């Protein structure tokens, strides 16, 4: 089954940590991504730019509304994602728990909607 790990972290807190530590934190993500790849379970992954760079669009009464900022203001923000292919939820959860984001934020584990199911 395919799952998306949505990595929610406090981006302000992350930006505030000293450069040396931030580098270490980034290194942890690189190592994690690499271990997913080596295990042959990684489909794709990406880091997202901060929510300050985000723009939200919706159409209401036929008129498009464009708003500066993310869809919802929350304490933790979606900062990146992984898509993995593993046998079941237990396997997905054990990978999600190893994601560095699980230690300084939260990982939402969502099954990917496969066509025909």
């Amino acid at each position, binding site marked *: 089954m395919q799952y998306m790990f949505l990595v929610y972290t406090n981006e302000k807190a992350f930006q505030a940590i000293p450069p040396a530590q931030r580098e270490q934190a980034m290194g942890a993500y690189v190592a994690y991504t690499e271990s997913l790849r080596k295990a042959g379970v990684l489909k794709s992954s990406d880091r997202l730019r901060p929510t300050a760079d985000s723009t939200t669009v919706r159409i209401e009464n036929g008129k498009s509304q464009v708003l500066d900022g993310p869809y919802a203001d929350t304490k933790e923000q979606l900062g990146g994602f992984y898509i993995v292919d593993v*046998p*079941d*939820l237990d396997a997905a959860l054990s990978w999600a728990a190893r994601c560095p984001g699980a230690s300084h934020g939260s990982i939402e584990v969502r099954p990917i909607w496969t066509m*025909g*199911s």
Partner: protein
Amino acid sequence: MNDDEHARSTADAVARRSYGKLVAFLAARSRDVAAAEDALADAFAAALVDWPARGLPRNPEAWLLTTARRKLIDAQRRRQTVKAAAPELDRAAELLAPAPDEEADDMKIPDHRLALMFACTHPAIDASVRAPLILQTVLGFDAAMIASAFLASPAAMAQRLVRAKAKIKQAGIPLRVPERREELAERLDAVLAAIYAAFAEGWQDPVGTEPARRELAEEALYLGRLVTELLPGEPEAFGLLALMLYADARRHARRTQGGDYVPLADQDVELWDDALIDEAEALLVRASELHAPGRYQLEAALQSAHVNGRRLGRVDGSALLALYDALLELSGSPVVALNRALALARVHGAAAALLSLDALAADTRLADYQPYWAARAELLAQTNARAEARAAYGRAIGLEPDAAVRRFLQRRLAAL
């Protein structure tokens, strides 16, 4: 008995004995518990038509399984689009592959019930629906019956069960017994907690006037036994079974003929079921030989101390206190702290116990808990603080849903 009745009673007997085994087997790979239940219901319906007409099959369980699998595969074929056919057909083939021999008398259906229970109590399943889910999938209880046992609305219960089964399938929760030792211990806790929740719900009907609840306690005992059989190396499973047996052994002593509540200390020991108590004691010994104490073993040991204390006419207060201390360290539960205070009263007197209750007073979880106020009232009465005792009994009476217990508390209040 005519053929129709005979077919029905055979089908009922197989349903009772094998329902969970058949559901677990049918859903083991697909994780589609709802589809397995539907197919099995169809198979039972087919049996009631087929068996009276053609005679009972040699192996009714295998007949039902074969029929249910055919229904399951039919349903899958109907659902699938051409595009999605390949993996679905693989799954259908898997379902057919390990076909047990319908004609063999000793056919054994692999028992995946424990795996099903672990799926039902997965941390990804909401804790409040775990016990109902086990009752439905392993025992075949319908939503209305489960709802009445758990005092929930049938429609809401049905919806929560449907949602939980969909989650097992869509989120990919495996039907599997955890292999790693630590994980097994952690997850087993949830299985045992669900069984105990079912038992506690059943236990709340002391006079046995509500068949749904009475049956719930019995079925919880059945599940407790099943877990000890399937996991013979788990002392906590023994502990839970022992705990439930001690309680069940006193079932008939909890009320007078007239339906009045009888506290443990006043129960007629003659009314206790000695066979159940002996079984519980033996289980505790077996558990202790595995040298891994835990919550249920400690609670069962407390029951043992109470039961033997009553039988010998002398309860060892300091032994009780030591057990409560150990349990409190393990659970940190305010309810345990409350019971510990009562044991403390036996050893060091009511005044010391009241002091320890005062330390609990700030815990909001106890504010609406009847036994807290009843215990407080009892201890206050013992220290001759009559006005305060009266007020505490008033709180306890106001919080108690069971009329018999209410009457008991009112008599205590009147006796002040």
